[in-house]
């Protein structure tokens, strides 16, 4: 038996149970779902009828509970299931949810909270104000330990193949922290500027705002932070840090994968040398993507980030002999050579001088070697991104006509639709659905491309297998033809890494290790052509694995994000998201392009801030890592994951409390739509010592309310919402609030619209009389509806029974709905095999309440407090006492049996 008694829930009933059992000498485990013990009572202002400060009388109990030598408390934890052990006791499974903060290190200093860039509604303040994603539940929380709320990984971050914390940099931009945003991206890759321009931004496709008014411009925001950073910093001179235990690593290829790997390995303390076959470094960034999309200077700046760490790049060197590298002293090698080999059509005439590959054409353009095409007609073969880049580049070189011919129909083209649109806008002609029959020449010069109608591109299994209607043909005149029909890795360079006939180099998908344990391969060389972002992600993974390989560790542990947050949950969370329209999306095209100047304008700072402000904080925590930097105790651990504990106990006390009636389920009262209609629970917060506004204000406009109405029995004694029960304590808390309001706002008038005032405890009726004597008005009769007036005041329509029973209307500044209680249905689902019986109203059933109150349908399981029906604080304490007496007796019986 690990514990004598498991107490579920640490509200007043749970704490009382644990303390009494602990005092008797039993070992108790308390499992609390919230990050603090205390339940609902700690959030109250004062208690009736003594007007004791709720904080003041709760905190000693909370502290006593966690400090009791016989009581163990797990907060932010949930019981997952309980099954009988067959001998009178129980096996329980408890999940400790990750706090993402090491409780043993956290000092409760709240630096993380101050640094956090995400604000969410504060559930511990009735959602009247915000709190941070990194937070301590409330000032009196026990334990005083921070936690970070993570609903999941935000869709943008989750979908990023590079592993960039997209939500993180967006939230940093929202906070005006551009340098920190740059640094956050640079935690993943040095290619901030390049990705900010040339990434195809799958993140934007997943942005939840996209389901509302339109996606955030996440890529352009990255460009904004890169521009901001590069405009204020000079490229740093290379630093050759001493090699403190680091090793020598050779990277072959200086594209996005190689550069990213080099960046991480250099940060890890290794000495890295990159071998590049081309005359300049940068791979596809520098050789394939035209400058109007990605200027060469930007790539150079990104590369300078890498060389600043001491990474050496040698160009014009084609490596083929891996053993030679080994002999030269490299401890590990990464092959990241991309896809430098252009695919061929295999049609007649392809060998003609005027027919070139797009790879060669674009490289020549980017390096400034390409001849002008003034007055010439150009045909580009292919329908992908590269074909588009080639066609638009040809236009910029002065071509008279640029025609694209591709197998696919416009809809099927692998190029993004916006790319096609931009190309068309720049005067490119599209001939879609055509295959190439061949190139014909006159006087050895290309003068036409023969087309044949393509009837389908893929076979029934989705494989590339075009079929043609040979009889349908066409001819495109041209002076120059550019073929962009794919590219592949240079497997010939490393035959040992590519088995006969393999299209790509072979490496383990998880570790990226090749058949030679000291050789790793990453990027397009392994995956075939994909996106820059994927290559970056691969490079980061390779670096992680190489570092572990060199340190003799198992090749594992590359960061796994927590599961992606459900977008429906995110949208559901937005009670009333304000409409925020996206920036007008500019078509990035020049009608008559003449040069390679960058087309897309940068975001202004104002645009960037506005755009970032539209973020819905899907995952709650943005992973901006500000808390990591701020925590003086080094207690933050975003890699923390849930733990499951198996526990044997003798008895169980269910003290899971109640749920408040959701006031918006009475739409005629306008809660959720009218800002000055609040619930009694929210009024508790407005009156509490740690109150959000520091005085009683109405939330709509911050005015001090002068006329306040209470609507009693909201959601209680009400068949229309399915709750026929009286909630027992709403009358009293309202009467208490009446008195506190009259104390806080001496000029305020308080009117209570009631059915019956149920002041049925010791001193309660006297307390009711006291409220009347202080000036609270009590009007018998139900409220039919509430209407919001201009300016935020509220018109109540009600029955005035004392005044003769007529229908009346009255205007108030603020309305408090005295919401009642509903069962907390969580308790029943905990019990597997044996079912915990609920009563007709879904509260935990007490099977023998007159003789054995607190006893449930399962022997050894007891219920304490409002989990079995509405109870106020003293009733919950007494009920806990009854549960404790019987749970203790149950444990004693088990001991005798043992």
């Amino acid at each position, binding site marked *: 038996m690990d514990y004598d008694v498991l107490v579920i829930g640490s509200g007043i009933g749970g704490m009382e149970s644990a303390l009494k059992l602990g005092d*008797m000498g039993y070992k108790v485990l308390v499992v609390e779902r919230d990050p603090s013990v205390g339940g609902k009572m700690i959030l109250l202002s004062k208690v009736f009828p003594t007007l004791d400060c709720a904080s003041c009388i709760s905190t000693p109990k909370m502290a006593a509970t966690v400090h009791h030598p016989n009581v163990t408390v797990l907060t932010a934890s949930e019981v997952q299931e309980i099954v009988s052990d067959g001998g009178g006791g129980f096996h329980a499974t408890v999940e400790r949810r990750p706090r993402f903060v090491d409780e043993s290190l956290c000092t409760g200093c709240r630096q993380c909270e101050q640094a956090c860039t995400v604000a969410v509604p504060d559930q511990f303040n009735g959602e009247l104000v915000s709190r941070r994603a990194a937070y301590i539940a409330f000032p009196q929380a026990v334990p005083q330990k921070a936690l970070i709320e993570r609903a999941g990984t935000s869709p943008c971050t989750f979908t990023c193949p590079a592993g960039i914390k997209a939500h993180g940099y967006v939230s940093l931009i929202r906070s005006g922290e551009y340098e920190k945003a740059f640094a956050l991206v640079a935690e993943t890759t040095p290619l901030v500027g390049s990705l900010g321009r040339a990434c195809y931004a799958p993140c934007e496709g997943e942005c939840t705002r996209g389901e509302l008014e339109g996606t955030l411009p996440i890529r352009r925001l990255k460009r904004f932070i890169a521009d901001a950073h590069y405009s204020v910093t000079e490229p740093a001179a290379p630093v050759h840090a001493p090699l403190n235990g680091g090793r020598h690593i050779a990277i072959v290829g200086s594209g996005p994968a190689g550069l990213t790997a080099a960046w991480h390995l250099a940060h890890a303390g290794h000495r890295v040398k990159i071998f590049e076959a081309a005359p300049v470094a940068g791979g596809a960034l520098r050789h394939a993507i035209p400058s109007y999309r990605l200027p060469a200077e930007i790539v150079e700046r990104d590369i300078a980030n890498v060389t600043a760490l001491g990474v050496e790049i040698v160009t014009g060197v084609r490596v083929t002999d891996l053993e030679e590298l080994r002999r030269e002293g490299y401890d590990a090698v990464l092959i990241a050579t991309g896809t430098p080999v252009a695919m061929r059509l295999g049609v007649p005439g392809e060998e003609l001088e005027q027919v070139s590959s797009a790879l060669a054409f674009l490289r020549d353009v980017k390096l400034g070697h390409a001849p002008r095409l003034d007055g010439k007609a150009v045909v580009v073969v292919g329908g992908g991104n590269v074909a588009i880049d080639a066609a638009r580049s040809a236009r910029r070189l002065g071509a008279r006509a640029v025609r694209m011919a591709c197998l696919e129909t416009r809809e099927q083209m692998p190029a993004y639709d916006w790319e096609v649109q931009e190309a068309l806008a720049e005067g490119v002609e599209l001939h879609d659905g055509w295959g190439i029959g061949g190139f014909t020449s006159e006087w050895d010069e290309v003068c036409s491309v023969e087309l044949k109608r393509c009837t389908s591109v893929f076979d029934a299994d989705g494989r590339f297998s075009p079929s043609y209607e040979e009889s349908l043909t066409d001819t495109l005149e041209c002076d120059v033809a550019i073929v962009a029909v794919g590219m592949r890795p240079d497997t010939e360079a490393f035959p040992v890494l590519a088995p006969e006939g393999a299209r790509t180099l072979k490496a383990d998908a998880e570790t990226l290790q090749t058949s030679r344990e000291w050789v790793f391969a990453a990027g397009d060389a392994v995956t075939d052509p994909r996106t820059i972002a994927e290559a970056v992600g691969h490079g980061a993974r390779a670096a992680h694995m190489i570092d572990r390989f060199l340190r003799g560790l198992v090749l594992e542990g590359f960061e796994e994000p927590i599961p992606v947050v459900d977008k429906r949950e995110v949208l559901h969370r937005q009670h009333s998201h304000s409409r925020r329209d996206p920036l007008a999306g500019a078509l990035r095209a020049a009608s008559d392009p003449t040069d390679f100047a960058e087309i897309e304008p940068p975001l202004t700072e104002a645009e960037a801030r506005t755009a970032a402000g539209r973020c819905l904080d899907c995952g709650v925590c943005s992973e901006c890592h500000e808390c990591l930097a701020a925590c003086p105790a080094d207690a933050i651990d975003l890699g923390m994951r849930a733990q499951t504990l198996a526990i044997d106990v003798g008895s169980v006390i269910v003290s899971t409390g109640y749920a408040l009636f959701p006031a918006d389920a009475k739409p005629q009262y306008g809660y959720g739509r009218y800002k000055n209609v609040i619930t009694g629970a929210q009024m508790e917060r407005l009156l509490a010592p740690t109150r959000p506004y520091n005085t009683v204000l109405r939330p709509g406009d911050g005015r001090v309310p002068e006329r306040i109405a209470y609507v009693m029995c909201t959601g209680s004694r009400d068949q229309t919402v399915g709750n026929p029960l009286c909630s027992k304590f709403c009358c009293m808390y309202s009467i208490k609030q009446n008195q506190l309001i009259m104390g806080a706002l001496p000029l305020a008038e308080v009117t209570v619209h009631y059915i019956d005032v149920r002041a049925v405890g010791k001193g309660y009726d*006297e307390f009711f009389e006291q409220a009347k004597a202080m000036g609270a008005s009590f009007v018998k009769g139900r409220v039919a509806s509430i209407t919001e007036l201009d300016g935020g005041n509220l018109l109540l329509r009600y029955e005035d029974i004392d005044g003769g029973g007529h229908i009346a209307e009255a205007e108030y500044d603020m309305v408090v709905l005295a919401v009642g209680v509903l069962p907390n249905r969580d308790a029943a689902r905990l019990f597997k095999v044996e079912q915990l019986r609920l009563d007709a109203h879904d509260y935990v059933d007490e099977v023998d309440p007159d003789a054995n109150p607190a006893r449930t349908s399962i022997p050894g399981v007891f219920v304490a407090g409002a989990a079995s*029906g509405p109870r106020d604080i003293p009733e919950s304490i007494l009920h806990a006492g009854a549960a404790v007496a019987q749970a203790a007796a149950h444990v*004693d019986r088990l001991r005798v049996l043992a």
Partner: protein
Amino acid sequence: MSERRIGVYVCQCGGNISDYVDVEQVVGAVANDPGVVVARTAMFTCSDATQQEIEADIREQQLDGLVVASCSPKLHTFTFREAARRAGLNPYEYTQVNIREQCSWTHTDDRTGATRKAMQLVRAGIARTRLTEPLEPTAVQTTPSALVIGGGVAGMRAAIGLADLGLGVFLVEREARLCGHTGELGELFPNAGTGSGLVARLLEQIRERPQIAVFTSAEVTAKSGTYGNYRAVIRAGEESIHAEIGQIIVATGFDSYEPAAGEYGYGIQGVLTLPEFRRMLDSREDLIVGGRKPESIAYVYCVGSRCEEHPYCSRFCCSAAVHASLLASDRVAGVRQYHLYRDMRTYGRNELMLSESRERGSLYLKFADGDPPEVTHDGQRLSVTVRDQLTGGDELTIPADLVVLVTGMVPQANDRLVKTLKLPVGGDGFFNEIHPKLRPVETVVDGVLIAGACQGPKTVAESVTSGLAAVSQTAAVLKRGVAELDPQIATVHASACSGCGACVEACPFGAISMIARDGGEVAQIDRAGCKGCGACAPVCGEDAIDLLGYTDGQVRAMIDALIQIPPTHPHLP
């Protein structure tokens, strides 16, 4: 005396204090007092985080004294004693200063004055702390049995609960049998079952438990002893039994309100109290009034409740009357029933009975406070006249064959027991708990708990619940077998004692006796019996008695500190 190292913490209480007391100024005023090495403010000193800070200070600064200026010592003395103990500081080196109830809450009209007073109080607390000495609690073995007074459902269930936890029980009932009010009842509400059936079950369980000694027609006539070890005298007829017990649960129940003759027509035939009506309903005989089945019944609510004599609400009677009306409609098909009420207080699940009674045809009429219905008999028929607020205040006269006065619960006359146990009686005549919110079964009298309706009106289930809560509280003290007693008790400086015996007279707990010493007599204090009340100290002409924790020296130092005029602070006028 060597220089003390005292830590002073001034609480804001989240605004409860700092709204009216400038806590920073208070800290500034005392930070340089002799012996003070740490002085700071905190948002909630009682919060776990601040407690941990205090503990860290105690360890790191080697504090040997602690002062917390916050709320009433009633709330947090134990909190900070525990914090001190955790950090290795003797808990009695701690002083709580109350600047909330005594400053911020009292002087909301005078921020300057409240601040100045707080400074003086804190300074006095520091002065006391300079003279504290480490004290160790006295550990006493406790007696593993309890006395339960009252053999109603609360007392019976408590006795069973105690026995099930291995404790011996003396169950004492004044009447001839264990029964209480519940044993005479038929159907209960809101749960199924009868009162007599419930009591029969409890009696069966008591018989099965030999650890429960039952004394009927018996009374508790004397109580003595000290915490955890009491002796009670049970007088049963001619016999006196001396019971050794560790704790006492009082569950003496209630009396039903008896209307005066003529009150709402009480005395007229056909006018009954609710218990009388219940007896009628619970009997197997036909429901006959004046020789025939009643055609109409009127219920007048709040008789003897929410009135001048008994200002409290009796809680159970609305539900009990509605329940009775349901039973009546079961017994007499088609009976018309009129409920004349002020507020229908069918709280919680009892609301379902109210709905059911309305569905079955009961009519509800509401009369205003101070405008009660009149019950009259014109020689032929009973009738009730009421101004019904639900129909615009029209005066209605309702002919009734039966008028049921819905009477509430009143406290039992129990003067002897109150005297014997020194039970605290509230303004309403019921016994008072120590804290109505958080400690509902304990009383200010050590070792004496209350359960059931002797504390205030309760239903059956509520009484049984509180009986079991008293069991838990008892077991929390007795189950471990050892209790620790507060060492802040009186001590005699024997060399100064003249043996006059004045202190023996002054002690309300009989904890002082005279013993022979050096040919004379000197006073001696029973460590377990002394409650630290201090009554002996001022009567001693020789100043030979000191109250540990509040020695004459400490009290003088506090007075000196209090009357010191605080230095004029630049910000204070």
